[in-house]
């Protein structure tokens, strides 16, 4: 308490010294006018604001230090907190299902876009966060997914439901195609090659006008539900959903439908990725990130491991792309610039490498916040940059550090009854 009082005095004094020339002296005409109250008020506000802040900060820090010490010793699961996780998941799901009825059409569109970014973040998280392969061209797989749907519809009248798995698989193939030549690259070199790959895909889409329509883009239709359309009047004798259900037509239905579908897909993906991390393949990805040479000495084929990481990451990115095309109803190459890759990478880095919860929070934060602060759109990139710098200073490992799974030692081993002895297989 005494310490924070003294620090607050110093801060107030420094503020006074700074504010006197800034606000106390005002230029009017050719002379200076002295406003001596202004710096005093401001310094007083700084002093009064700083004191409780420091006091709370110190209290919080001493509290979190003692808890982080237990986490450091590796026993990541804290007893008495077991109920928090399922409760949190249930609350998040409930909120996700209620959201379409709370938000307007615009708000729902923003949240839907945020869900797509969650998908992209989850995909890149496999490649960068788990396998440790820095990928700056992730947007390429997003583009592959989006164009699969748009071009598939344009040329073959492919439905959304067919494009969804096909776009994902095609993106996975592209992921492996990219993965093969970069097997031996690490760090910066890998980043440069992937950056080039992302640009190649974008330039092909831009310049192969006869196939992709070039900068004019291609349109993609809205998905249907079991053949029922979401438009007021169905095309070519189909049945619109509102007539089928006997309800009034509303333009909101299609937005809600796409949103709920995305919630379903995102939840499934989160479940699969959480499982993957606890499966041999997920552990192998992380082992490869930690030490590739040790991996090889343990009989792990680094080729298949890297390709699986690239492939699965791209698959999730491709899913996001198909949804993006369906949401926008139109795709063109300007949606798939390097800035988009950087945005996805920022989500992964801010969220904390390898942490699923962190990626979800960061994706929501980085998508919803810029929309809410539309008036400050010019400063959007600046804000992301400042957030990154602050993160590096305070939480260099992301918003949420990954917790390691804790394993129970079999009681027979712990009490020393069974041994490795009796293994006669060598």
């Amino acid at each position: 308490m005494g310490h924070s009082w003294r620090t607050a005095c110093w801060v107030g004094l420094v503020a006074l010294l700074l504010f006197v020339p800034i606000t106390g002296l005002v230029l009017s005409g050719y002379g200076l006018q002295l406003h001596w109250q202004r710096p005093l008020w401001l310094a007083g506000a700084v002093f009064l604001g700083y004191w409780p802040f420091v006091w709370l900060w110190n209290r919080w820090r001493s509290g979190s230090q003692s808890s982080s010490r237990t986490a450091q010793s590796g026993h990541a699961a804290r007893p008495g907190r077991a109920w928090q996780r399922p409760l949190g998941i249930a609350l998040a799901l409930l909120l996700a299902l209620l959201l379409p009825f709370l938000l307007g059409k615009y708000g729902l569109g923003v949240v839907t876009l945020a869900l797509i970014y969650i998908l992209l973040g989850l995909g890149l998280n496999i490649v960068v966060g788990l396998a440790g392969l820095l990928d700056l061209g992730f947007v390429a797989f997003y583009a592959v997914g989006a164009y699969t749907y748009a071009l598939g519809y344009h040329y073959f009248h492919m439905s959304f439901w067919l494009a969804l798995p096909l776009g994902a698989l095609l993106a996975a193939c592209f992921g492996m195609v990219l993965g093969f030549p970069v097997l031996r690259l690490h760090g910066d070199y890998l980043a440069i090659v992937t950056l080039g790959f992302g640009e190649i895909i974008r330039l092909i889409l831009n310049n192969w006008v006869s196939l992709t329509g070039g900068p004019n883009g291609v349109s993609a239709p809205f998905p249907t539900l079991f053949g029922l359309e979401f438009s007021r009047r169905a095309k070519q004798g189909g049945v619109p959903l509102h007539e089928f259900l006997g309800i009034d037509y509303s333009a909101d239905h299609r937005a809600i439908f796409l949103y709920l579908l995305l919630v379903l897909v995102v939840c499934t993906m989160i479940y699969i990725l959480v499982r993957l991390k606890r499966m041999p393949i997920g552990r192998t990805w992380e082992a490869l990130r930690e030490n590739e040479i040790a991996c090889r000495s343990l009989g792990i084929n680094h080729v298949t491991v890297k390709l699986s990481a690239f492939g699965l990451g791209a698959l999730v990115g491709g899913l996001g792309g198909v949804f993006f095309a369906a949401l926008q109803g139109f795709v063109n190459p300007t949606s798939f610039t390097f800035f988009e890759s950087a945005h996805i990478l920022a989500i992964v880095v801010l969220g904390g490498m390898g942490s699923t919860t962190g990626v979800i929070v960061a994706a929501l934060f980085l998508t919803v916040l810029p929309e809410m602060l539309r008036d400050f759109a010019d400063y959007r990139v600046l804000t992301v940059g400042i957030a990154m710098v602050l993160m590096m200073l305070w939480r260099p490992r992301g918003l949420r550090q990954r917790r390691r799974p804790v394993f129970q030692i079999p009681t027979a081993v712990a009490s020393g009854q069974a041994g490795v002895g009796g293994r006669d297989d060598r």
Partner: protein
Amino acid sequence: MNPLLIVQDLSMRFGGVMALQDVGFSVQKQSVTALIGPNGAGKTTVFNCITGFYQATAGTLRLFAPATGTAGVDLREMLGEPFRVSDFWQPGVLGRRLFFKLFGGPHRVNRAGVARTFQNIRLFNELTVLENLLVAQHARVAAGLLAGVLQTAHFRRQEQAAVARASDWLRFFDLLGDANRLAGELPYGHQRRLEIARALCTEPCLLCLDEPAAGLNPNETRQLSRLILQLRDQYGLTVLLIEHDMGLVMDISDHLVVLDHGVVIAQGKPEAIQQDPKVLAAYLGTALP
């Protein structure tokens, strides 16, 4: 005589430097063989050739693992050898070469039964101790992607068995208390033991230890030599090790191979090596004439 590994005429050339020249020795089953020599003699190069991290320039490496029958397997072939003109009228040989070119590598050598540790410890620091051991057992958890995602009973049984196996080895190396700690935060001595435990989790028949006692205190070194002997006697393992600690080497090895400047200058029982004038000269230098 019952050899597990036969090394013949092994040569390794780095550009103009001949790191190894016609190195030949054999490792008997259930024995402890030590590779010693002054710094820069080529001991680690021999290790890297055996474990598949270097493709030897010439020579043969044949492993007679129990699973491979009496003919043994060629460890060099698994790394993917360059094509030869004669291959093109022998489609069988060509096919094998192509297969190993595409899918070969050090991991195949490990699967054939050779596990190793490293001079500078290479653990997965951000993973827990138990996860380190589970990664090493990845090949034994024979459950597919779908089984893992759906958590089938088969998958859970496999995982439990893997954890049990890992725990057994942790108990053997007295690391059970650290099972859920991060590998990177363990004390140095524990990290050394963990690396050996991880290598053992791949179920090898030949364990190659690269300076296992480096950085250990005398007490830990004694403990280590006891563990190595236990591995040989109780588990029937064959151990090949590089070591500078002569006390440890003379205590536990059955056979010694002395290298100097890439050439084997002596091999035999520890007592004989201690008396060998060539070895003394290599270590202590010769008197000026």
